[in-house]
């Protein structure tokens, strides 16, 4: 009897020790920190679908929407009420790291969850109207260096938000000083900001490449640079990167996930691996293509470091422009 029990125990122990042994049983929850219809909601729903087709999970992936505070409500919920739930993943993006860096989730920081991976990105662009005197990013940056108030930017995020930060990242990389004096006009969304740039009221537009497709194709908007490592695939291939113009600025707006902190290492490993498998699949490539997502996927294990780094970078910038004391 004793021997039997020991063997059983040993078997169970051995089973749980092997890395791939852990698998979520039953229903998995994907928390989208916004209303249905937004980017996070899309991330959860499409990832859930592909995971089910690839049989990465036994049961179903259920998307639960929890809007509020730009993801803060869901973050607080994960940190406090679900801290050891290993069947929960939460959609995140650069908006999440920005708010974490600027301490907009009171009492919480990036180390309170486990970051499991990214699955693609939308890249930042800097653009001007078709009649603008600026032909490339260098001319625009030279004007900024000469007088930081000479170029006015419009974007779809609040001051200090991601669209504003992209301008600052580029200006800093170009060697401009007096970053806080660069005028930034915040609009409710990218479309509204673009109208003002196309209408000639504001000099330059900062946003993501997917937003600008319409005005780019109509020729009303001239994209000076995309803030990616290499030129983007497909129809965006003509846009020069900031790097090839000698300005080392990157602005990926990634889509990815985090999970609660107090979960087992096995569960974490399982989810990191699942995201890897998913990202490599044909099914996910089709989703990315039809939704304008551009490849972006830090290697397994590097994502956590990437997030920490991005948070630090944004924190420094925010401090520099006086948004953080």
């Amino acid at each position, binding site marked *: 009897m004793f021997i039997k029990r020991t063997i059983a125990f040993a078997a169970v122990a051995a089973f749980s020790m092997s890395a791939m042994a852990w698998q979520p049983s039953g229903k998995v929850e994907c928390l989208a920190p916004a209303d249905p219809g937004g980017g996070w909601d899309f991330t959860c729903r499409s990832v859930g679908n592909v995971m089910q087709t690839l049989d990465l999970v036994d049961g179903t992936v259920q998307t*639960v929407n929890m809007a*509020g*505070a*730009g993801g803060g409500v869901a973050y607080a919920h994960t940190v406090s009420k679900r801290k050891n739930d290993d069947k929960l993943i939460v959609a995140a993006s650069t908006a999440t790291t920005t708010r974490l860096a600027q301490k907009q989730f009171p009492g919480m920081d990036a180390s309170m969850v486990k970051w499991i991976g990214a699955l693609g990105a939308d890249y930042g662009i800097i653009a001007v109207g078709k009649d603008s005197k600026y032909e490339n990013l260098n001319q625009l940056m030279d004007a900024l260096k000469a007088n930081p108030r000479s170029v*006015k930017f419009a974007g779809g995020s*609040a*001051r200090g938000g991601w669209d504003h930060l992209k301008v600052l990242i580029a200006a800093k990389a170009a060697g401009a000083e007096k970053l806080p004096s660069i005028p930034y006009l*915040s609009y409710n969304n990218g479309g*509204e900001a673009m109208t003002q740039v196309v*209408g000639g009221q504001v000099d330059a537009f900062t946003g993501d490449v997917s937003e600008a497709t319409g005005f780019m194709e109509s020729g009303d908007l001239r994209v000076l640079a995309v803030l990616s490592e290499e030129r983007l695939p497909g129809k965006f291939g003509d846009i020069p990167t900031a790097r090839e113009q000698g300005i080392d600025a990157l602005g990926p707006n990634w889509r990815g996930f985090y999970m609660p902190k107090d979960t087992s290492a096995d569960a974490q490993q399982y989810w990191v691996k699942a995201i890897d498998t998913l990202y490599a699949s044909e099914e996910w490539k089709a989703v990315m293509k039809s939704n304008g997502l551009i490849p972006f996927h830090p290697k397994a294990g590097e994502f956590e470091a990437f997030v920490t780094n991005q948070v630090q970078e944004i924190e420094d910038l925010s401090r520099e422009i006086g948004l953080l004391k």
Partner: protein
Amino acid sequence: METIGFLMEGFAVALTPYNLMFALFGAFVGTLIGCLPGLGPANGVAILIPLAFTLGLPPETAMILLTSVYAGAMYGGRISSILLNIPGDEPAMMTCLDGYPMAQKGRAADALAISAIASFAGSLIGTIGLIMLAPVLARFALTFGPAEYFALFLLAFATLGGITGKNPMKTVIAATLGIMISTVGIDISTGTQRYTGGVLELYEGIDFILAIVGLFAISELLFFVESRMGKGRSKVEVGKLTLSFKEVVTTIPTQLRGGLLGFVAGVLPGAGASLGSFISYTLEKSVLGKKGRFGEGDIRGVVAPEAGNNGAASGALVPMLTLGVPGSGTTAVLLAMLISLNITPGPLMFTQNADIVWGVIAALLIGNVLLLVLNIPMIGVFVRLLSVPPMYLLPIVTMVAFVGIYSISHSTFDLYFMIVFGVGGFILRKLEIPMVPIILGLLLGPEMEKNLGHALILSDGDWSTLWSSPLAIGLWLVAGLGLVLPTLFGPILRRRMRTAIKEGPVSD
């Protein structure tokens, strides 16, 4: 003409069976809401917003439903004016003058039929005006910079009380309340949080759909609970239709004049449908002078205000769709709905969301035909529904409101918040503080603040930029007039409206 092309595309959207079904449903419910005394078009649309969310309607269908409700409510207002001498909503006030005397003479059926025809004519004229004017104004709106937008919002606030508004102080209080509520949450021009008190749910600000449903729908329920008005009205006999074709033809000039005047009144900020119907009625009286027997049941006295208020209803959509500045309470509610569907009104909408804009306009035209059909043969149904006790209607409204709001965000916090707004709205209405300026403050306050900030950034802090372009100066002047005129002429106009009403319906 490209407008015709767009309109055809709009018809393609509006004529799908799914959208047509919702247009019909909206027209029916709208008429019903309009004829219930106390429930105006703004309330009607506000009550139906949660339903659109509950059913998970796509944006164009949701907007078609709500505009049909709007058009329907404008039709419905006349029913209780004519039958009971109680206007179903404010714009239908003038219809009492000749409508009720007609009913007393046993011509209720005729009055209802001719007013339905007049509503149709007014609405048709207004919608044609909307089709012609809106694209032009939308293109013009591209030349608006922050300074011009700031002046425009200022104009909207200056004319808020409207020429017929009762107590300017209370309007100011209401608008201020709205602006105060709108400041909660992140301030996009500085990136800092305001008045959130560390409550995470408040960080993104207060959703105005919550505020609207709470202020209009929930407070309505509380009023009902208070009054225990459980019985409903006694049934009114309508009688036989004796309206002759010749009689309809003789009112055509009246219909044209009324519709056109109403449309103009609707486009102008602050005027709205009530003024539209008042002006049309007064004009008709002075044009026809002694020839008519106004106030004693003259058929043209029913036609003029109905054509006027329905023309104004379509007219009020023009500034809302093209500039994002609503001309009336109901269009403010529609604007809130557009924004929460993630559609920014203005010039961009006419190109980027052409299917929605033109689908809605086409739906207005279709809805009018539906309404005419609904309102002549089926008038008996509405009259009967008028006597349905509200105790059956309001619980349904409440249920829909709660389910709808919950289905937007899945947050119980929002439900509590809606109740807070409902109780707040109840108290404010007891104090006779109007609801519409609150909504306008809530919607326009942040826009005005944003544009002021932007104008100053662009001019490097030079305040004179606000009145440096001819367009901006023009807007400032109109805003000034809008502020001064009501205080000068408002009392006179109101007195005339009141005396007109007093000498009009003879209630025995």
